């Protein structure tokens, strides 16, 4: 079924369909889809994507029978099980969890650049059917762990989550995606960091081959705030990780890290877009990929430095290892700089595992497979050892061992 039919048929189940402004915006989006037809030639971000799955699909959503659980075992620590993108409301003196409201719809989604470029965010706006909003109150230090579960087969989840970190607060957010059923999730996270706040965002993705996951994150950082994102992608299904960042006030920082492990016929699309809009801001991006079998990956990186953003430091690094003849990696690290007092750089390498290093290890009695595994582990060791959460570190190590067991 095409996009328009899906929309007209399921209008009743979609969030905010009574709001006239939102309705008008959605009609505009449908028009864009009609005219643009997901033009792969002129929209690089669609590279390597099997579009058929996303243009012709059957919309299906189910409100979960059970409500989600919020646990507070330890002080300042919350664990949430979100079912089909829903989370029940909760309130104490540190955090507040609510449903998303009409006014949250406009955040990030209504924006010329996105409307014309990122059709997956447009799809999200069009079919929005779940999501929640978490506010971290002033000067609190909070840990939240969210486990995302989809209850049935063939569901299409279009979820929008808003996170607001109030002044001086700090949030450690761990999100896990482990879906075994045949379904599609299109998730948009909109994150607002107030003055002097901090958010450490961990995403562990480990879905089965039938599950398509698209995560788009937008963060806007005010004065002295820091956003850190670490994505570990072990999924066997399609994953799209896009991140948009805006450094809107001085001395804010964004630190993005992504590591993906691909095999079989899998595809992963990654994009980061960092906008430096104020002075003294920093950005750092490190993306690493290991590609085996017939897997494909793309990485688009864009650092934009506005004319007023003097004293900017912006660094990008992308590295790819191709383990097989049929794997391919495309990277486009872009710099757009309009201010002169800046330090910006990017580096990008793609290649096989260093033969000399393999030779060194083999000459010391190691098999080729063992040597390869050691070198892959060391390739990402810097990032793995920087994880300060022991539990997380263990989970990732386990998944890494599982991935390496398939490497020959």
């Amino acid at each position, binding site marked *: 079924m095409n996009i328009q039919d899906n929309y007209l048929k399921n209008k009743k189940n979609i969030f905010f369909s009574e709001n006239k402004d939102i309705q008008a915006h959605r009609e505009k989006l449908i028009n864009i889809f009609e005219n643009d037809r997901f033009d792969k030639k002129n929209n690089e971000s669609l590279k390597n994507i099997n579009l058929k799955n996303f243009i012709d699909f059957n919309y299906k959503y189910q409100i979960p029978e059970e409500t989600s659980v919020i646990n507070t075992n330890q002080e300042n620590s919350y664990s949430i099980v979100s079912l089909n993108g829903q989370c029940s409301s909760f309130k104490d003196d540190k955090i507040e969890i609510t449903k998303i409201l009409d006014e949250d719809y406009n955040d990030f989604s209504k924006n010329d650049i996105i409307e014309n470029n990122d059709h997956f965010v447009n799809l999200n706006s069009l079919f929005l059917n779940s999501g929640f909003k978490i506010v971290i109150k002033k000067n609190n230090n909070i840990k939240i762990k969210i486990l995302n579960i989809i209850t049935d087969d063939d569901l299409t989840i279009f979820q929008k989550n808003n996170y607001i970190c109030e002044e001086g607060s700090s949030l450690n957010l761990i999100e896990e995606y482990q879906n075994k059923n045949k379904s599609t999730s299109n998730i948009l996270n909109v994150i607002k960091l107030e003055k002097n706040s901090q958010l450490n965002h961990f995403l562990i993705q480990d879905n089965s081959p039938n599950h398509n996951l698209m995560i788009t994150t937008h963060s806007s950082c005010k004065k002295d705030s820091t956003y850190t994102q670490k994505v570990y992608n072990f999924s066997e299904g399609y994953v799209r990780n896009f991140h948009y960042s805006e450094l809107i006030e001085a001395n804010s920082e964004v630190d993005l890290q992504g590591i993906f492990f691909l095999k079989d016929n899998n595809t992963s699309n990654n994009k980061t877009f960092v906008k430096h809009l104020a002075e003294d801001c920093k950005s750092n991006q490190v993306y690493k990929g290991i590609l085996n079998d017939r897997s494909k990956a793309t990485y688009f990186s864009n650092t934009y430095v506005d*004319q007023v953003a003097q004293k900017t430091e912006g660094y990008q690094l992308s590295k*790819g290892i191709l383990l097989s003849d049929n*794997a391919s990696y*495309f990277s*486009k690290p872009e*710099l757009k700089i*309009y*201010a*002169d007092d800046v330090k910006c*750089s990017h580096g990008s390498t793609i290649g096989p595992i260093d033969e000399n290093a393999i030779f060194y290890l083999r000459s010391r009695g190691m098999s080729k497979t063992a040597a390869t595994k050691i070198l892959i582990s060391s390739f990402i060791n810097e990032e793995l050892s920087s994880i300060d959460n022991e539990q997380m570190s263990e989970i990732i190590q386990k998944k890494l061992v599982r991935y390496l067991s398939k490497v020959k």
Partner: protein
Amino acid sequence: MNSETLDTLDNYSKNKYKYGFVTDIDNEKPKKGLNEDTIKFISLKKNEPEWMLDWRLKAFSKWKKIKAPKWANLNFPEIDYQDIYYYSAPKGFDKKPKDLSEVDPKLIETYNKLGIPLEEQKVLAGVAVDVVFDSVSVATTYKGELEKLGIIFCSIGEAIQKYPDLIKKYLGSVIPAGDHSFSALNSAVFTDGSFVYIPEGVKCPMELSTYFRINAENTGQFERTLIIADKGSYVSYLEGCTAPKRDDNQLHAANVELIALEDAEIKYSTVQNWYPGDEDGKGGIYNFVTKRGLCAGKNSKISWTQVETGSAITWKYPSCILKGDNSIGEFYSVAITNNFQQADTGTKMTHIGKNTKSKIISKGISLGKSQNTYRGEVSFLRKADKARNYTQCDSLLVGNKCGAHTVPYIDSKNNTAVIEHEASTSKINEDQLYYCRQRGLSHEEAVSLIVNGFCKQVLQELPMEFAVEAQKLVSISLEGSVG
């Protein structure tokens, strides 16, 4: 900073754009506009055989179907192709002059002003110059000596008459007419350009050189250059460009095709100094150039070196298709933009054969209110085993109203190929500036010295005659915007 550079700086600041004079010669033009009649007119004027006209008309029909590329980071009004003269030849050129004495003395004077006195240059520099004045090749010097070695160096018009087999085989083989809008346009209306053929095993003993110059107002210049290096041969080719000062924007859409067969090497150097427009961004050349080289044979090598200082708009991507095993592609570029200039330039290295290597060194300098973009693509196809690429692109920003952008596309489909890319953007290092100032250099001298050092890696790739000129050009381009 030597006194010579300073003198030149002085001279140029007084003269502004020195080459901005117009030679007053009657021009013979067809009507304005692009249609089949214009193409037939050009073909007739050039006395071309029928197959060439057909080729042009085919390209024209393709052009009508293709839209101009929009992806470049350039901002300019839509080009009105119907408001341009597509052919302009000084009158009395129907019969070609046999030697320089038969050429209009005014023309010779023009070149003297440009600093390439043909007579002198013959003796002094050992450079054979094929001068293109607007669209017709004026005189080809040093022909005799080259002929002895079997080297063909003539205008493309002449080659169409004399060597139809070579033209039929190679013209459009690297840049097909339907490749994109500008290549189709050029294929339809190209008027002149150079043709070089180096036979098997011959090392061309001198640097071949062409000077292009747009003279008549509202004339697009569409030259087409074709260089073929047969097995085991070597040639170094220089190209220089200058245009008079005009308020209108002029269009320049050239196509350059290089073909290197087995073990052959081609070195192509350009110093581009078209009129960049004035301080307010008025006028200037629109430079849309397609340059592409094919390393067809094993162990062949193509090397591009460019110094881009002129043009209001530069859209130029000299690229290499590395088809033969062990072939090598190189790209060295300095692009300087000042005032309201916009440059979107870079390269494309396509690795097809095994053990192919490519190297890209690009230096961009933005001043004033200009925008400077490096756009480069490196791709390894599935069979490019053990291919290797190294890319370095650095940008320097002077002032906070300009922009420097880097847009690399990196695509690897082979797991034995290694690709490395690094880029940096910064302003001039304060410590270096302080060091120079401390030793008595003025601010402007210091900046000029640092910028020259920044470009050194590329400038040293240029042949001797060009290197000196290029170094001066770099200093001149910085003029007035520093401090």
